[in-house]
């Protein structure tokens, strides 16, 4: 890492993740190589040993997520990272972590799918991340950065939220954000007050209660009670932790909505539209779960036309539709993932024009 005069460093998104994890006090990393995120384990394999931490290249993504489960259960901060196929393999483990109320950070640098797909940027794993690709109807925290600085900051936030709400937290980005280099101010770990981890499995010393990390609930009504407890926690998350960015929405007649890398492309397209005299704004969810429903509802009181842009055939659009006012319209422009399919600002500008004209 070379630092500039301004203390900024110019790094890849993936490297920023690794740096932020270390700053957040993460001392255990378990992962399995997969493009386009392998810079993360590579960086940590260099840095963790010197910090007294543990780096394991697991035998598989399943090994990795279960090592994360084991480490998190003992109360340390730990992380794994992967991409599409590997994240699919982790679904059972994530479900167990959610069912065991375990924290733990999962980085998902999305690539094109389904199947082996390709290594190009994708947003087609939105459903998998936000709806729980695993069984049992749990949810996890999902944070969607749109810049290298933000992936740094959100990785740190993921550790805090995960500890506070006792559930896995995922940073959901794609190969644009993971491979892109930008200048980053390596912020130090925020002084968030974290709840004590009394539930930790670390040996049942005399006089302390037995701690058990488990997801098995067999007593009458126990599992149901767990679900309602989680439901309340999700609501609390929505109330306290919803994050989003609005750009020029105040006077907008068309609101583009997009997350992560697409929001970056959209921003330039919106500048082009503004230059062309169109009142266009951007609504970018930063937390995908909790989805900033209220913010969408509020915006849609004043602007009735949305254009949702995704690197998929449309997934977040469900959340947008379920959030906006009933009389709002949500148009869609999707470029499913794959080589040569990343939209350009010019292309999105055309879409904005088309929809803007349709409305006026």
């Amino acid at each position, binding site marked *: 890492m*070379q630092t*500039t005069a301004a203390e*900024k460093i*110019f790094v890849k998104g993936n490297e920023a993740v690794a740096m932020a994890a270390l700053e957040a006090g993460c001392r255990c990393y378990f992962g399995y190589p997969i493009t386009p995120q392998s810079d993360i384990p590579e960086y940590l394999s260099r840095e963790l040993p010197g910090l007294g931490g543990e780096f394991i290249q697991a035998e598989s993504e399943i090994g990795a997520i279960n090592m994360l489960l084991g480490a998190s259960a003992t109360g340390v901060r730990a992380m794994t990272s992967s991409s599409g196929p590997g994240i699919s393999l982790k679904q059972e483990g994530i479900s167990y972590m959610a069912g065991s109320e375990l924290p733990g950070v999962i980085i998902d640098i999305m690539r094109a799918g389904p199947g082996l797909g390709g*290594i190009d940027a994708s947003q087609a794993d939105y459903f998998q991340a936000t709806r729980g690709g695993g069984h049992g109807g749990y949810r996890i925290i999902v944070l969607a950065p749109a810049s290298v600085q933000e992936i740094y900051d959100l990785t740190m936030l993921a550790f805090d939220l995960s500890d506070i709400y006792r559930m896995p937290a995922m940073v959901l980005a794609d190969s*644009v954000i993971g*491979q*892109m*280099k*930008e*200048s980053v101010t390596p912020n130090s770990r925020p002084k968030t007050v974290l709840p004590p981890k009394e539930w930790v499995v670390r040996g049942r010393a005399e006089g302390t209660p037995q701690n058990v990390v488990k997801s098995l609930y067999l007593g009458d009504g126990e599992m149901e009670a767990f679900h309602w407890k989680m439901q309340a926690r999700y609501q609390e998350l929505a109330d306290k932790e919803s994050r989003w960015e609005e750009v020029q929405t105040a006077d907008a007649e068309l609101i583009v909505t997009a997350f992560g*890398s697409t929001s*970056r*492309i*959209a*921003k*330039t*397209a919106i*500048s082009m539209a503004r230059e062309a005299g169109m009142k266009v704004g951007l609504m970018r969810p930063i937390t995908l779960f909790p989805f900033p429903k209220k913010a969408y509802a509020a915006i849609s009181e004043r602007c009735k036309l949305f254009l949702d842009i995704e690197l998929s055939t449309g997934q977040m659009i469900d959340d947008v539709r379920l959030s906006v006012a009933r009389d709002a319209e949500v148009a869609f422009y999707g470029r499913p993932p794959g080589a040569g399919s*990343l*939209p*350009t*600002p*010019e*292309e999105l500008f055309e879409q904005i024009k088309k929809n803007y004209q349709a409305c006026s």
Partner: protein
Amino acid sequence: MRYDVFFAGYGGQGVLLAGNLLSYAAIHEGKNVSFFPAYGVEKRGGAAMCTVVFADGDTGSPVVGNPSVSVLLNQLSFDKYAAKVKQGGICIVNSSLVDTGGIDLPGIDVVLVPMNQIALEMGDVRMVNMVACGAYIEKSRALKSESLAAALKKALPERNHKLIPANLIAMEAGAQAARD
């Protein structure tokens, strides 16, 4: 101001290093920078591309559909990307490897620089990317050459710092060629 430049060539031509170099130069000038690379599937000999966007404010999209400047180092890149250059933009071509075939690119300033030849003359064909960078700053005037000199220290690993003077000469040669 917001600047963007697109580099493309095959693996081994140093496309990514060139992008990094311009990035550091822009950072040196206090700009915000987004450097966005892309590769083909081959480990060796495949395609390599990158886009660098730098600006005083937000860099916005790291993806650029119609670059203001494209630097195209081989035939494949030229065939695929030359026509994408923005109207009024610049297309810098490695004429050592590219046959522009009399293709007409109206509204685009096509600059032919025999980069391999120049690099070979400088003693190392691997300096093609430096020649290209020189041509770029000459034509775009987006960055100062001092900044590139400073950037070399950041972009090159320590063990290659001894090559900096040679690289600077290669850049200057590229600039010179573009000027002519």
